């Protein structure tokens, strides 16, 4: 796996922040959340990935998708 430093990853996340996030606080919160989630998962040793972690993500994706697909 290509390894980037934490700083490089953080810079990429901030650079790609949605322009819809107009305030510094919004961008900071979004980037911080995305960064911490991704780094936390990146640092999990493969042998410590559990079924519960994966099912939790599947449930989150399902719930967020329902919200996205809900008619306006």
């Amino acid at each position, binding site marked *: *796996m*290509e390894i*980037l430093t934490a700083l490089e*990853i953080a810079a*990429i*996340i901030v*650079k*790609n*922040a*949605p*322009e*819809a*996030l*107009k305030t510094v606080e919004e961008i900071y919160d*979004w980037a911080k*959340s*995305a960064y911490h*989630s*991704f780094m936390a*998962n*990146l640092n*999990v040793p*493969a*042998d410590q*990935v559990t*079924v519960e*972690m*994966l*099912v939790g*993500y*599947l449930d*989150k*994706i*399902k719930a*967020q*998708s329902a*919200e*996205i*697909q809900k008619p*306006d």
Partner: protein
Amino acid sequence: MNSYLRFFGLGIAVVALSGCLAGCQTVASVFGTEVSQDVRQNAYKGYLLALSVWADGVQPAILVYKRRPYCAPEVTVICRNRATWEKIQTIEGRTSAMIERTRPVITGGTTDIELITNVAAAVWDAKTQLEAAKAEPKEP
């Protein structure tokens, strides 16, 4: 408007998905033979990163976009293009449904681990399609 969805170029996806794809190829190369616990755990790790990119990066950003009002003559700056939004919904729905179909691999409904090795590629394809939808010319 045309750059609202710039986040779909989310650079971390490159890192996560390249790592996953490498792991997935390893799994695919041994698929059909005995899949060891180590190989399975490596596949789970790649799967976790792909799920993280989708659930923590892409979907929340789509939800941010959804909160914007539709573009109209009096709303032209921070707004949502209706045609683009419909494409985004289609791509998101298709990708999330594909991901959901991999649930039995985790919950024991099937031992076909190859299903989860396809998730990274699906997320990558969705990212490419979302970028294309973003780049299409918009009606004024």
